[in-house]
């Protein structure tokens, strides 16, 4: 076999996937730009994409920008709300995941396999099914209210499913917490137990041990988990659709989803999406680099 063919082997193996990614990931993203920087049909108000970047028009981006920072900035509240929900949910995911992952990695003993399998289980249960579970539980005559009111003894009137932000944030936490759990578990599992013992021998107490040894060593897991939870959550619209359906809990994803289906606003949806991606670009690149670093480590 010739050396030339030898050298070409790897590019040939990679070619189909690279063509696929270009055609079905990069080209679609480019079309989003062409639609957002394009024209609008005067009657149907459907978008007319402009394919040549030199002719791009920025009317629709201007509209979106104006609604974000202009005097009539009605895009801002959902943006702030999204940030607020995501921050609360991510912190809650961390707080929930840490003790559980720590237990699974350090203390589960002979139940380790079982615990791990149960932690992984939510990955196999469809997200929508898990939301459906909560819709059923949170009905006015559902189990949650029955438990809280102890079967109607305690008078309480909570309507969980009508624009209750608590329900939405709970739904986000419930839906995304497995994506925090596994990276955290992996990071904690990697800490060598003898290291902890050494630290203890040198007199480090419970909290000190946690703060000085466990936390710093689990940082890669915390970062990966945070990004894996936060980034997809930024584009989420279905959780609040399922659990609230009220404008008072609309997120950025809802704005985009609503605009896509409305004649004349697809371009604005695209522009909004581009702005979202610009904001997320930095954390996304950070993620790819931390992954690359992890690869080097292993």
């Amino acid at each position: 076999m010739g050396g030339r063919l030898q050298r070409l082997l790897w590019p040939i193996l990679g070619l189909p996937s690279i063509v696929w990614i270009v055609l079905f990931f990069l080209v679609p993203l480019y079309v989003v730009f062409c639609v957002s920087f394009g024209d609008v049909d005067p009657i149907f108000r459907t978008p007319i994409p402009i394919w040549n970047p030199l002719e791009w028009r920025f009317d629709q981006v201007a509209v979106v920008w104006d609604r974000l920072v202009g005097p009539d900035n009605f895009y801002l509240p959902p943006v702030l709300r999204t940030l607020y929900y995501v921050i609360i949910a991510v912190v809650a995911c961390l707080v929930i995941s840490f003790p559980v992952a720590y237990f699974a990695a350090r203390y589960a003993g002979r139940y380790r396999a079982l615990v791990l399998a149960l932690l992984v289980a939510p990955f196999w249960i469809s997200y929508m099914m898990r939301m459906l579970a909560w819709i059923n539980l949170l009905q006015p005559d559902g189990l949650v209210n029955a438990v809280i009111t102890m079967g109607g003894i305690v008078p309480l009137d909570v309507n969980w499913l009508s624009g209750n932000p608590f329900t939405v944030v709970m739904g986000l936490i419930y839906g995304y917490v497995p994506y925090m759990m596994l990276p955290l578990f992996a990071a904690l599992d990697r800490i060598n137990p003898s290291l902890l013992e050494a630290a203890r021998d040198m007199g480090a107490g419970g909290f000190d041990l946690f703060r000085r040894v466990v936390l710093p060593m689990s940082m890669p897991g915390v970062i990966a988990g945070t990004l894996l939870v936060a980034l997809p959550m930024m584009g989420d619209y279905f959780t609040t659709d399922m659990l609230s359906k009220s404008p008072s809990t609309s997120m950025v994803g809802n704005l985009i989803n609503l605009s896509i289906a409305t004649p004349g606003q697809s371009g604005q949806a695209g522009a909004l999406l581009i702005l979202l991606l610009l904001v997320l670009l930095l954390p996304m690149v950070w993620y790819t680099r931390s992954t690359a670093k992890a690869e080097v480590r292993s």
Partner: protein
Amino acid sequence: MTVSPAPAEAILEESQPGGRRSRLRGSSDARAYGLATITTIYLLWSLVPVAIVVLFSFNAGRSRSTWQGFSTRWYTWDPDGSVLNDESIRITLMHTIVLGIVATVITVPLGVLLALALDRWRGRIPAGANFTVLITFVIPEIALAIGLLFMVTYLATPFGLGTTAQVVGLVTFQLAYPVVICRARLLTIGTHYEEAARDLGATALGAIRRVILPMLFPAILVSAIIVFAGVLDDFVIVRYLSSGAATETTSMRIYQTARAAPTPALNAMATIILLVSTLAIVAGWLFYRRLNRRSGSSTDLGSFAGQL
């Protein structure tokens, strides 16, 4: 998994033979019990609601919150609403499973080939491809879905909205899993097996086929299961790229009906899909165990789950 990026850290993690046992004793007993309690509460919180969905698929009445007796009515015999008699539910289930199989069959080979190529090929193109694949991992799904929707709508693509567009979207979104999982495995395999094979006279392609691919097989199996389950779970892409009732999936149907007027047949449908993905995992695990027995690696559930 609607939110699809995999826990890359977990994937890159080597499976621990047997798992490390805790050696922290004594004063930490109280802490262990505390943590065990928290873990138990967490597991109950995360799994009991789903168990209730399954339970209510067997409700004899129409209610999804009041138990009215056990029955298989919503699976088989209700004349209008049961999974068996409502043709639209059957079509939805079939379409979901077909998408799962087709997308997996395309995604996994594409991903494995790319992982092999990225493992050896140096230069800007592979670096760019690697970067782009990792971006598809974490980009909000709605971005990819809208991009493909616009492309199919405004460019003269050879296919319109519907099954083909859904498959294309799903493959693109899931491609990162086999790439990342197989690359991690390739890094641990290293080059010496291949070099040995080459020294014995194998061609490069032959070395891949006879040496590398068999060693890579557990990773390929795991990524196939992950992709399959991810496709069954997908919502955003399949919804944007669907063309109507014939290309509806179970996730879409839950989204559309959960807040309208569902019957326990919706629970029954969700339960069936859960059963399908569970079967896929169990089959995968049995297969994985057989493979690892032969190669003498660890065979417990934990190491398999750790791979996921």
